[in-house]
């Protein structure tokens, strides 16, 4: 056979394979890829959440008539805006009950703050009030809980409130209780 015919026959053989492949893979040949974009946005507002133990018993240690004391851990998560800030405050919702014992109005219940993992704890001794909120913590602008980086590394921040109460002989014996509300505010 002439060499040209041989080349032509070889070409047909190859084209025949291609046709066969084309028939066997119609899905690939006929596939279509399209893409689109969508913008997801979320507005993150300042938020705060505070968690405390439902009860704290003050106890006396040491000499008779030494002061009663107890520490309340306050856990909080917060996010403040870049131009905002926040605070944690404390207020007694009413007087000690029953009467005959310590008195919030008389300044019997004081506290100090320490160990804030985010923000600045209150300075010096604070006197609990039923009429006004008193400071526990000041939160800076752009503060956020958890994740590290510009946020705190702790997933839940905390500050300790150490209550102190004198032990006056004039108080009648018994158990006295007062409800205290901790408020966190974020701007």
């Amino acid at each position: 056979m002439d060499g040209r015919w041989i080349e032509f026959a070889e070409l047909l053989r190859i084209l025949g394979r291609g046709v066969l492949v084309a028939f066997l893979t119609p899905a690939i040949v006929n596939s279509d890829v399209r893409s689109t974009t969508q913008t997801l946005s979320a507005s993150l507002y300042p938020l705060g959440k505070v968690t405390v133990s439902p009860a704290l018993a003050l106890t006396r240690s040491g000499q008779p008539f030494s002061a009663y004391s107890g520490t309340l851990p306050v856990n909080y998560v917060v996010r403040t805006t870049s131009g905002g800030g926040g605070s944690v405050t404390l207020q007694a919702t009413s007087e000690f009950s029953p009467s005959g014992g310590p008195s919030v109005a008389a300044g019997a219940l004081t506290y100090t703050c320490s160990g804030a993992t985010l923000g600045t704890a209150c300075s010096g001794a604070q006197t609990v009030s039923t009429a006004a909120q008193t400071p526990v913590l000041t939160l800076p602008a752009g503060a956020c809980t958890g994740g590290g980086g510009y946020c705190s590394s702790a997933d839940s921040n905390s500050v300790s409130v150490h209550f102190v109460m004198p032990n006056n002989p004039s108080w009648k014996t018994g158990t006295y209780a007062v409800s205290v509300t901790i408020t966190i505010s974020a701007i």
Partner: protein
Amino acid sequence: MRKYFWVGICVILAAFAPLASADSATGNTTVSVTVGPEASLTVDTATTTLTTTGTVFNDYTGTTNLTYKIRTSTGSGSGSITAQVQADFATNGPSVAGGDLTYTCTVSSPGTACSQQTASTSAATPVATFGADAHSADSGNSASTTWTLKNRPQIKTGTYSVTVTYTISAT
């Protein structure tokens, strides 16, 4: 028309939503304290020197001042202050066991002072008693024991001393 009204309300609310840029939350706890009966005592006169004045062989006298704080329970509470000599005077001196040392008491309210007592090394003797729901001042109340030591001629000359322990209790 009504549908458009509500749509309009929603649009307005959505427009103002970003302004809601503050948040606050609260947590509550109950702070409690159990106030029990307590008592404390301070001896203000660390060393009481007994002296004699006037007629020869007059008894020696001296006063020990105390400050006490007390809170007794309501109902069946009570309290007391007592005194006990730890050991007798040295040999050839006055004798506690022989009844040479006596005392009287002065106690401010709410305490009740003892009548004259003979000091003892074997038992605590009363200085003051307190009833139920007794409360001293926050700064404490005063009490004292005025000691009388017999000045018997048989006692050899010298300086003699004993240690007295005061005990206050409250229930």
